[in-house]
Every structure is written in C-alpha cells, then in structure tokens.
C-alpha cells in the first residue's frame, strides 16, 4: 500500500530530525498566524477600541515620561525624551515576548496533549503577538520624532537590522523561558522582577554614554544594553550604530536563540507528560 510511513521510536536526548521538524513548522505557518490573531482577540485587541488601545497605550506611556522629564524634571532636552520613548517601546517588544512566552507551553496544555505539532510554534506565536503590539508604537514614535524635531538621516535604515536582532533575541528568550516554566512553574511569578530589573539596568531611563566606564563594563552581561544603545543612536540621533555594540547585541541574540531552541527542542517531546 502506497502510504507515507511515520515511525515513532524512543528518544534518548538531543534534537529531533531538523529537516522534518522545519518542514512541519513551515506547514503550520497559517496556524501560527491564526493562533496569534485569536490570542490578540482574546486580549480584546480584535475590537476597534482594543486596536485603538494598541496606539493609546504607548501614547499614554510616553505622556507619563513627558510629564516626568519636561514638566516635573524641568528639562527641555528633546533628545532625552526621544531616547526614552524609542528605547522603552523596543524594550516592551522584548518584555511582551517574555511575558507571553513564559506560559506559552503551560497554557497550551490542551493543544499539546491532543495534537501532534511542533511545540515551538507556541512561543513563536507569543513573539508574533509582541511584534503586533510593537508595530503601532513605531507609528507613535515617528510622530513624536517629527513633533520634537529630532534629526533624520539614511543611517536610520540601520533600524531594520537592529529590529531583526531584537526579534531574534525576543524569540530566543520566549522559547527558553517557556521551556523552563514547564519544569518550574513559579518562573512566571519571578518574571516581573526580572523584566523590571532589565528595565532599570538598560539604557532607557538614561543614555549609555552617561554611565561610568566602571559600571559599563558589567553591562556586557546585560543582553539588552548595547541593543537599546544601538537603537537609540539610530532612531533618535540618526547616527550609525557602534560596531562593537552591534556585535555584542548580535552575539547575545543568536546565543539566546540557539541555546533556547536547543533546550526546547531536546525537551519538547517530554512536555506532554509534564503538563
């Protein structure tokens, strides 16, 4: 009988056959998109007001910082406000990916227990949702950029590769943390402290050049530090990023992605009995 044959045998450790896995993941791309859309709908982003909130939320956030910097702080430095909003919006792309990713597997229990599909699809979906939420903030930032008179140049095109690095990092983090949460369910409770620490340790409320060299040398351990610094240089100052900063961010992003994927893929066949 001419039927495709699938063989299931015990696995000890290590990765599944990658070619087949990638093909299965690619064939499920429509489901990833539809699943992400349904999750957004569940969070009320399907309605007009929900979609409006995607724009209002970053506007309100930048409004709060406008109040802090211009009104309470008495500053008239447009660059500082631009830096704060730009880096904060990119930071939210990563933190939303992390917060969505942490429960991607544990909340997908019914799917995992009853359907055979590449499990990595679930944290990918969390990053896709974070990207959907990030895109309106780009529009808001562009408006702010024009309104406060920040410079424009061709160097701003560096924003695309930097955004790609940010996405790889966000995905790597989501994949890794979703897997860890299967084994330690309280990771999701610890996560807000982790993201808050990252917020304060990264150049968002301050610019990278304003901190001392003695402190800056420790920032090599912060995956976001040079990523956000490069982002700020490009989209706020309209300058080219520093090569070493770009390399640092890339190494962190791809390391997190590769390590996250390796741990996830070598463990995912265990998820159905752990949930």
């Amino acid at each position, binding site marked *: 009988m001419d039927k495709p044959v*699938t063989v299931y045998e015990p696995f000890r450790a290590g990765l599944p056959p990658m070619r087949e896995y990638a093909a299965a993941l690619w064939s499920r791309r429509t*489901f990833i998109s539809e699943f992400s859309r349904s*999750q957004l*709908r569940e969070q009320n982003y399907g309605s007009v007001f929900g979609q409006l909130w995607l724009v209002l939320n970053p506007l309100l956030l930048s409004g709060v910082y406008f109040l802090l910097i211009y009104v309470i702080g008495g500053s008239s430095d447009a660059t500082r406000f631009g830096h704060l909003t730009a880096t904060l919006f990119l930071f939210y792309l990563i933190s939303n990916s992390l917060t969505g990713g942490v429960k991607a597997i544990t909340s997908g229990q019914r799917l995992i227990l009853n359907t055979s599909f590449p499990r990595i699809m679930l944290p990918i979906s969390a990053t896709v949702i974070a990207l959907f939420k990030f895109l309106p903030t780009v529009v808001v930032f562009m408006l702010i950029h024009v309104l406060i008179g920040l410079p424009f140049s061709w160097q701003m095109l560096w924003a695309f590769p930097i955004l790609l690095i940010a996405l790889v990092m966000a995905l790597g983090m989501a994949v890794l943390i979703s897997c860890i949460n299967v084994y330690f369910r*309280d990771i999701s409770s610890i996560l807000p402290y982790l993201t808050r620490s990252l917020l304060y340790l990264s150049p968002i409320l301050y610019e990278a050049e304003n901190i001392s060299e003695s402190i800056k040398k420790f920032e090599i351990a912060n995956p976001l530090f040079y990523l956000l610094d490069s982002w700020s240089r490009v989209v706020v100052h309209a300058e080219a990023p520093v090569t070493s900063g770009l390399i640092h961010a890339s190494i962190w992003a791809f390391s997190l992605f590769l390590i996250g994927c390796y741990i996830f893929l070598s463990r995912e066949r265990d998820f159905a009995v752990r949930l």
Partner: protein
Amino acid sequence: MISLSDFNHTHEQHGVAVSVRDLSLTYTTSIEKKPTLKARFKSLGRGKKHTRVISALSDVNLDIHYGAVLGIIGSNGAGKSTLMRVISGIVPPSQGRVEVYGSVSTLLALGVGFNPSMTGRDNVYLGGLAAGMSREEIDRDFDAIAEFSELGEAIDAPMRTYSSGMYARLAFSVAAVVEPDILIIDEALSTGDAKFKEKSLNRIKELRTADRALILVSHALATIEDICNEVIWLNKGKLMMRGNPAEVITAYREFVNARKSASSDEDV
C-alpha cells in the same frame, strides 16, 4: 496477556495501518502538581525525591489493518488514551516501535485549539488548522461543517455564548469532515444531546471504509459493540485481550464484576 498470534480475525484483512511492536511507555513526572523552583531550593540537601516514574504501557503488540474499526476498552488509567497519544505521535515511546502507514487525524478531545472569544466561524478555521487542515481545505469544507453542526446563524456568534451542546456540535463537525487514512477518536461521542450523538455515531459509521482504519476509545461498551469489528482490552498498561467485540466486552465485564465483588468482600 495474550499475544497477537492467539487471535483469529474474522473480518477481511487489508494492509497494515498501524504496527505497534513491544511498546512500553514509562515517564517521569513531578510528584508535586506544579513543580516550582522554590520547592526545589527548599528541599536542597534533604535528599527528597521530586519525581516519580509511571509505567503507562507495558509490552504492547498490536497490528491495526485498513478496514478495521478497532475499539479500545479498559478502566480509567488503563493506558487507552496514552496508547492513542503514542500512535498519533504526541508522546514518544520509551521502548518498542510504532509504525503508522498513512495520515492520522486525532479526535482526542473536542474543540482543541478553539478560542471562546472568537466566533464559531473563526473557530472552524482555528480548529481545522490545529487539526492539520490547510486554509483551502477549510474553505472548501466550511459549508459542510456549518451544515453538520446545525448551528445556523449562531455560527457567527462568539463561542463563549454557546451552550456546551452547541460547542460540542461544532467541535465534532470540524473533526468529522477530515477524511484521514487513520482516524483516532477518544470519547468524542460522550457529549452533545441524544440527537446529535446519534448523528455523530452515523458519521463515524460512514467513515468505516476499506481504505481507512478507525480507532475508537470509549467507556460506552454498547457503542463499541455497535460500531467496531474488533476490540482490545487494556488493563494497567497491558494488552489483556483482543478479538471480536462481543467476546472481549463479555470478558471485560466479567473482570470488572469480579473486581467489584472482591472489593465488596474486603469491605465486609
């Protein structure tokens, strides 16, 4: 435990759809319902065990042929659903080998992938995509799904407004249009009203063709006897018996009754 060679199959045998050889499944699971990092830290140095090993299936051998409608019976915890999950590739075996010849569709739970905040229409797409259908296939089959579900205009209402019966009807309808080589159904008939139960039963009967293998897990022994042409009985992960439905169901009933009287004797 009875080996495969002990059976005389009365129905016509076709090519093998599923071959299960020396299948065992043991898995390590957390003792706590929700394992936490905090609990792990607190127990550091105390030598406390965090995991336990569960043997879900033990040395199961089984061939399922095309044209067969195989019923799987057994008490709770017998390993029925686990066996289905191994055959459908959801859980890998610990020992042995499973070969599946053809496409598999599983109906292990109703409404997998559904999102209650979306309309029935959206969920047809979501559930269909989760089941492995393509968007084009769902487009093609949408009218049939909607008609089978008998939801009428409610198909465009959010699913959170549905009754449990309406939910089950739509979920079964999505699964019922898939026409795979091997269809695995686990307790799917236990929901919905009597009329819809009959309709779903008839649909399953329609799916009984010579070029398809159906595997049906259920506690409803009358349904199993009605639909299946072959039954296996699992107990504590072991294959106890395989044969024609009436024989296996009778043996299973006797076993359950004997166990009941043994436990009531102990109570006395």
